[in-house]
């Protein structure tokens, strides 16, 4: 599974670094390094809804506050 986080300026200011860092540690805690590939991209053209996260062509709006729930619902459940 490829999870792409927008790290463009707008999402960056809305906390994409915190989202990336949290996802990195959640992936490590759940030992999913070989199942989930984390990538970054500059701008998904959907700045109003940042932080934008893309999983297999589907877009999600995530924030540092909702990242744990997002991981549970969309990453953990899909790979386990």
């Amino acid at each position, binding site marked *: 599974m490829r999870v*792409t*986080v927008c*790290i*463009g*300026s*707008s999402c*960056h*200011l809305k906390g*994409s*670094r915190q989202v*990336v*860092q949290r996802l*990195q540690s959640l992936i490590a805690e759940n030992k999913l390094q070989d199942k989930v590939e984390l*990538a*970054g*991209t*500059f*701008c998904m*053209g959907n700045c109003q809804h940042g932080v934008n996260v893309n999983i297999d062509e589907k877009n999600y709006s995530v924030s540092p506050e909702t990242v744990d729930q997002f991981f549970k619902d969309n990453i953990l459940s899909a790979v386990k």
Partner: protein
Amino acid sequence: MAMDMTRRFDTQVQLLKYKVLKEVARLAFNDELGENLLDIPKTIIPGTTPTTRCCVYKERAIIGERVKMAMGGDHKNPNVVEVLPIACDECPVGGYEVTDACRGCIAHRCEHACKRGAIYFDHHQKAHIDKSKCIECGMCAQNCPYSAIHNFKRPCENACKVHAISMNEDKSARIDNSKCTSCGACVYQCPFGAITDKSFILNVIDILKRSDNGRNYKSYAIVAPSISSQFSYATLGQVVSGLKKLGFHNVVEAALGADMVALDETRELMERGFLTSSCCPAFVTFVNKFYPELSKFVSSNPSPMVAIAKYIKSNDPGAKVVFIGPCTAKKMEFQLPKAHPYVDSVLTFEELQALFDSRDFDLCTLGDDVLDNASYYGRIFARSGGLSDAITEAVKELGAEGFEFKPEVCDGIDACKMALLKKSKNIPMGNFIEGMACDGGCIGGAGCLTHGAKNKAEVDKYGRLAYEKKITEAVSMLK
């Protein structure tokens, strides 16, 4: 646009170059360049009254040469900096001469200062220089109490600290490509605009048009942090909006590449013990051409431009990347094998201004977009000393306080030369040479719209506005 363009540049030469670039870009955007190419000189120089040269026909002939440079210049000449021989005014090259300010004093300090016996006096006691004996050392001029002895040196030769400029038999300037670092100092200094940098503006227009607003591929503009001292009539956010309006999918700070470089260069320095920087392409070229024995000390890190372009392409392999900065040497660097796969074209700020105006964008009326990818430290790479400040910080952030970082901050090519000379003679010195070819660092680059005393403060201010305060945090999301 009717607003006063002259205020946006330091010189009328830049303004003239801009007018040509704007016209070429306007026609290219409208797919009308082919049929209108030969009319450009008359569009720019209308009427019959000359304003810069002997007649409008010469003025137009020179504009014709500028059009050629705007379209990429002489493809047989690998140098991105070229002389336009018909524009060269063949300035006087007399060297040291005694001027009318000589009072015919009785002290004759000039005569005593001259070790070659080249000074003689006429019957009014006025000094003269015997050119067959003079070696142009300048001691007479330094010692004259009236400053009556002047060095008539060409501004281009004076600007070129690596002595790559000499004179053809017809007295027009000539660039020795084996010495030139493409820094652009002569481009900025020639009062007649007879030396100029080749433009890739048509390649950029082609990239933007073929992208079809991102439908075919995405184009990214990487902007150098020195942009903070440019386009001062608008906000940086408006410049970003303008870039997106031109058709760039996104704008990314080269300063984020600088953050990456700062960390990697610190690690490399700690491992190797001595290093020179590798971010300034004119400095790297200078080392390779004049001190090849020291090339092994040049950091193996890519430049910030290449570092960030590489990252963008690793995540979006079909992307096109255009670097926009103050630098003419970047136009040389992006064509090198280590940069070419990642950077598709390079523009200067001068050229970006022409591109905006060719589309009649009034930046002041656009909304404020955001640009925030890098840390304070990545951003201050734009001025001399910034890279060394960033490494000092990186040493701390990497928890390597035991490492003693001793930078030699070299502001301008003369300072670089001194440090490299010391290193080549094994004279004790610091363990890092920060080499910046332009005075003041990138803010002194030849492709800037304006150069001013406040530019350094502008860069530092922009640095402090960065959302990320630490280098490691700025790059943490790139892993």
